[in-house]
């Protein structure tokens, strides 16, 4: 089963996709915990893309392709931004003092911690990030 979301790179378009991810999880009977994790992963990746991926002010399409099997959910994020592999980012310093922790890297760290598989590729002008999460059922 598949569902695709396509938005412009605007922060106010992200919540609609996140609610769509919730709905996808509900309709597939995923556990509440799995649904929250998937929403969080989608928020972190999409927020990064709409905030940082594009150098120019024009509207650019950002896509999320969701698909699921009985054991896992596959999330494919596609954007035409600057080539960027978030999986290459170093882990944030989690032992730093609070005032130093507000810096970036937290979102990507959360994503890497919450998924079971991740890969990045550049297809022509497109960043393609594929994330796999094993799912539990609600029953």
């Amino acid at each position, binding site marked *: 089963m598949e569902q695709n979301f396509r938005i412009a790179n605007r922060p106010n378009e992200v919540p609609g996709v996140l609610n769509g991810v919730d709905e996808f999880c509900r309709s597939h009977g995923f556990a509440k915990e799995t649904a929250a994790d998937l929403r969080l992963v989608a928020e972190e990746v999409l927020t990064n893309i709409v905030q940082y991926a594009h150098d120019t002010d024009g509207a650019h399409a950002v896509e999320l392709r969701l698909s699921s099997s009985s054991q896992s959910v596959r999330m494919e994020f596609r954007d035409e931004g600057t080539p960027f592999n978030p999986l290459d980012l170093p882990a944030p310093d989690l032992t730093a003092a609070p005032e130093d922790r*507000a810096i970036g890297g937290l979102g990507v760290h959360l994503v890497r911690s919450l998924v079971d598989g991740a890969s990045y590729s550049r297809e022509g002008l497109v960043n393609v990030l594929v994330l796999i999460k094993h799912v539990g059922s609600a029953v």
Partner: protein
Amino acid sequence: MALNVRVTKDRSFSRTVHLAGRLDNETAQALDSEMNVLTDAAVQVVVFDLSNLEYISSAGLRSIFRVQKTMAERSGKVVMVNTQPQVQKVFEIVRATDLGAVFTSLQELDQYLDAMQRKVVDGQ
């Protein structure tokens, strides 16, 4: 479900920030804008009551870290109470729990604040 922020003054030196809903990129600003109450230097302890917070993302964490920074600068404290499982998991991933005491009940928190109140009174 958005975010509901309510700040209560429990003791002269403490404020409790009750969060309900989701603390994320869309709502973190709502928390930030309520935190001007902390400019009162008499505030030494900020309690985050997370009983009804269902979800937090990195944007929400950054807002909480900012409060921790403000309080650390005046040698104050930030404590968490009644963290729910999803939020607790995120705290553990980013090791936020070592930044402040975590209480599992309001009673336990009250005992802590009582002890602190005695210290404040004794210190005067």
